[in-house]
């Protein structure tokens, strides 16, 4: 495994080049350019703010004191990293097929493709952060030094997402229906993660269930370091990193194992 990781690190220039290709290609030729990568999370935020803030009354949950704008801020805080996660998963289901020419026609380290997907989406996420910070300033909510916890959250999310994406990209080559299942699964997963509701507003019995979802703790770590301005629950977070590493290991193992089959199946 260590050898394989070194191998991946040797490809960093290739990864860098492909990620910048994806970014450039995405922003070239569009008037709004970079703004597009923000539109999705912004729209989601707007919809959920209207539905849960104004219509159903999610803003009444503890921590918001009925302040709908605080609720919107809380939403955006969670939706932004979630978009990174969900786009990565959805794109990795297609990436081997879309980039089929690279696999079929030249000698190419295939693992670079899912890595490209997750990394590109991470860059989109990072580019969205200044907007998040701007919202904090606009809504008059102070940020604390705990914002500096961000790189740790980033790393944890990267490892976990990467593991899942290896799994998904390898399996969709052979089982095409995973793509359809995945879209539904992600919607379900979204609601099973404390993004549109705060973790603390959930009944204790259900919190136990939520705790089994690694994304709960990853999104919570963003909530803590930004919205609440405190140290994330570090014990749960450490366990999450370990779980993420297990997923990464298993995902890569499977991906590596099926490596020879991609040339013929994509």
């Amino acid at each position, binding site marked *: 495994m260590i050898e394989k990781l070194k191998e991946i690190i040797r490809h960093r220039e*290739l990864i860098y080049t*492909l990620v910048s290709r994806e970014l450039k290609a995405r922003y070239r030729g569009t008037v709004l350019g970079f703004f597009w990568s923000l539109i999705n999370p912004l729209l989601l935020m707007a919809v959920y703010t209207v539905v849960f803030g104004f219509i159903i009354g999610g803003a009444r949950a503890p921590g918001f004191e009925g302040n709908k704008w605080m609720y919107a801020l809380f939403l955006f805080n969670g939706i932004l990293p979630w978009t990174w996660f969900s786009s990565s998963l959805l794109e990795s289901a297609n990436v081997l097929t879309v980039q089929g*020419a690279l*696999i079929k*026609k*030249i*000698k*190419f380290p295939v693992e670079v493709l899912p890595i490209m997907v997750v990394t590109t989406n991470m860059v989109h996420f990072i580019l969205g952060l200044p907007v998040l910070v701007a919202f904090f300033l606009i809504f008059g909510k102070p940020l604390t030094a705990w914002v500096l916890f961000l790189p740790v959250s980033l790393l944890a999310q990267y490892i976990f997402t990467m593991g899942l994406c290896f799994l998904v990209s390898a399996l969709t080559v052979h089982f095409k229906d995973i793509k359809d299942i995945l879209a539904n699964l992600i919607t379900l997963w979204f609601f099973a993660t404390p993004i549109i509701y705060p973790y603390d507003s959930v009944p204790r019995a259900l919190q136990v269930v939520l705790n089994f979802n690694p994304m709960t703790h990853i999104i919570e770590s963003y909530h803590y370091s930004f919205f609440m301005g405190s140290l994330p629950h570090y014990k749960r977070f450490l366990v999450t990193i370990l779980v993420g590493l297990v997923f990464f290991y298993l995902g890569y193992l499977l991906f590596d194992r099926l490596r020879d*089959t991609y040339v*013929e199946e994509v």
Partner: protein
Amino acid sequence: MEAVQVRDVFKFYKKHADSHKFLTIKSALVNKTLFGDLEAGERFEALRGVTFDLEAGKTLGIIGENGSGKSTMLKILAGISRPTAGEVVTQGRISALIELGAGFHPEISGRENIFINGVILGLTRKQILEKYEEIVRFAELEEFIDNPVKSYSSGMFMRLGFSIAINVNPDILLIDEVLAVGDASFVPKCLDKINEFRRHGKTIIFVSHDLATVERICDDVIWIRKGKIEMRGYPKRVTDAYLEYVGKKDEKKSLAQHGEEEQEAVREREKRWGSREVEIANVRMFDAANREKYIYQADEPLAIEFDVAAAVEQDDFVFGIGVFNSEGIQVYGSNTLLENLVSRSLAGSGKVRLEIPALGLVNGTYFLDIAAHKRDGYPFDYHHFQYTFRVTSSHRDVGIARIPHRWQFSGGIGFKKDENP
């Protein structure tokens, strides 16, 4: 030293059947390869026990029909796919010209794509920077390098891809038919570059249908038939045997293909220009018995015929032809003006026929230019490299043209005829 050693290589592909649907994730994991135990009926046997060695510095040609396993062999050599059984050992850095411009993104400029493609082919950014000027110059794209690749013609795309791939500076170069898609004027340049590689002692494996080029640049040729090596040896010997085998089959196919090729050619505007005040259409070739045919013996008589039509009556016009070989060298060219025919009038439509009593060409693929223009060169309709025909014969002479000749001996020189050349 052997640069390439191929031992008993087999490659089976799964025939696309419904059995796949019932595959579970569990069985996929257990079997590792997913094809672990395919029954003989379920698989397509692309390669069936191929063994050969190639000495470093030599150029090997691989020929064979479509689907014979040539490209599969090349993909295995390139490390793209793995053999089902057997072993391949290679010495040195390999560059495969199988797909040119892999990873090119249409929205991005040629300049940036050079870096993307170069890194994909295994160069570092620094190495690419060093070779950047050379790559652009060789591709003849100095003016267009900052335009997005989507604005390139297919020829420009191919030139850029080729230029990057050869600048990887490999020890072993694998070439798969990529020259077939290039614009005809670029092909000779590519061949020059390949020759330069040979002079520098690089090992080359060249897969192609262009037998004339294979004969010219290869030291050795392998003919693969149905996944097995049918024959290996001196290029001319192998290509002749191969030609004999495909000769009959090809003749029938060629006639059918001609129609399609012509349509395709018309679509490609850059190969045709002119005002169209006089238009050329329906270029055909006939043999002595007046049958439409595109494969000829070296000294066979033939006729080239085409229709011309003028919307407005013209009194200044010239018809011309040019014959080029596969390396882009003009073998012959002439027109009515050069042969002192002074045009008087062309009204409505007519037919032009050029009869050639004996072709006098060596084996290979040839391209035709057919043109109608004014005396001062003003083009009415110029068809450049639009038509092809092939010369295949048992003659083994080489060169550009077949000069009529006869050997005569006197004195104490004796020959006898080789019954089995």
